[in-house]
């Protein structure tokens, strides 16, 4: 596990820092510096609210290396309210209660651990949205 590999994407994983296209206004996550809609250069940072809804979901029974101890767990495509889809795990919810269209919000959780001496990778997961919460969770830009 290489420290720099995870360090350079902390903005994305901790705060959902993406980009906005200065030409057409498309919100972009993950950042890619070229707008997928109009192909203009898009390097302006944009912090997503972390709110969205479930577009699709699946429960993983046969997990890849490093994720075995978490299985079974539920992964999802989330439609963020600003437009993009994002791939993430769902948390704080029983799989049988998940449905397409369920409102969710981003939280920060451990994604994986690389043994006792390795890196602990933190990042976004999504949980059922708590309506009482009026402030977006990923404000810290």
């Amino acid at each position, binding site marked *: 596990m290489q420290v720099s590999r995870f360090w350079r994407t902390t903005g994305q994983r901790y705060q959902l820092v993406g980009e906005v296209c200065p030409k057409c206004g498309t919100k972009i996550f*993950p950042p890619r510096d070229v707008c997928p809609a109009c192909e203009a250069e898009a390097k302006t940072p944009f912090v997503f609210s972390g709110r969205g809804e479930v577009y699709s979901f699946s429960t993983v029974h046969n997990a890849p*290396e490093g994720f075995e101890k978490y299985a079974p767990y539920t992964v999802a495509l989330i439609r963020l309210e600003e437009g993009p889809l994002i791939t993430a795990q769902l948390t704080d919810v029983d799989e049988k209660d998940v449905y397409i269209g369920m409102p969710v919000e981003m939280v920060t959780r451990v994604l994986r651990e690389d043994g006792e001496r390795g890196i602990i990778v933190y990042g976004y997961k999504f949980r059922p949205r708590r309506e009482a919460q009026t402030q977006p969770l990923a404000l810290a830009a």
Partner: protein
Amino acid sequence: MRDVSIIGIGQTPVGEHWDKGLRLLAYEALAAAMRDAQVERVDALYVGNMLSGELTAQEHLGALIADFAGLRGIEALKIEAACGSGAAALRIGYMAVASGMYDFVACIGVEKMTDQQGSTTTTGLATAADAEYEALHGVSFVSINALLMRRYMHEHGYKKEDFANFAINAHRNAVNNPNAMFPHLITLQQFAEAKPIADPINLLDSSPIADGAACVILAPTSIAREFTDKPVRVRAVAIATDTLALHDRRDPLYLEGAAISTQKAYAAAGVGPADIDLFELHDAFTIMSALSLEAAGFARRGRGVALALDNEISLGGRIPITTMGGLKARGHPVGATGMYQIVEVALQLRGEAGANQVRDARIGMAQNIGGSGATVVTTILERI
């Protein structure tokens, strides 16, 4: 540009080859194809493979296999495009012969998967997806397809069991394929009760991990009959790409890469879906069969599953698919799969498909998909 034909084909059985390493599997398929073509040398060798580094700690397959096969000195390269590697190797070989650079080229697809098992293989397969934004979140390759399948069922109103006939049809065809991994029938009840892998995908939606190698020998069509009575002309082999990550697609349920690849192939060959007598599609999971049929123009959006329900995909149906068992029942040695598809289409066009022969097959198509649709190779072959 020169016209190009397949003058020889070879394949090993697909399965768990505990007694054979990658180089031996590749050699057996190559030797069979060279015998079939009655050639003793080739000018170049292109090896389609996805996971040799991940699973057997062996890269540099071009030189390795050329040397092992007694062809030391020739041009030889590994071609990698995830599960689309096999047919991608055909594309490179086709360009070499069509351009006039070489007269005789061997294109191999080979994969050795059973030296590892379980989570190591699952991790390897996930390298076809986006490492930073998909795999890091624990998404397996199966679950990426499961996300597609759940959404497809939601948008188009299908039940899980509606996908069963893709798997049942593939197994029925595998029974008569001596190289198939699972040459036995399955029932709707077995499909409905199969173990979940990544819900809604279960074991019988999924193609099996396997070892295997397949090979074709290419030559200019102008001299093909000097080597074989049954040359198979390569009317088109076209590659198109899409985003690696599902979440970056404009519409995840539309395989844009497959649509572009198919359109390029149709245009190059001067044919359309109505001219295709059989279609070896990339049924890694049942949902992929449905999406491929739609992207290739055999069904409208949301109607790919209906083709299976109406049994239009069987050997006597409107568009026979997976005629020798497909990925599901012949087996899916990932980087070799595309070459198996091409060899199987060639068998059909040569009239050598035995009990599974599609009647009067003249034009066949194969479509090999890397990842969840990021690389798509479409090949159209013709009996001449």
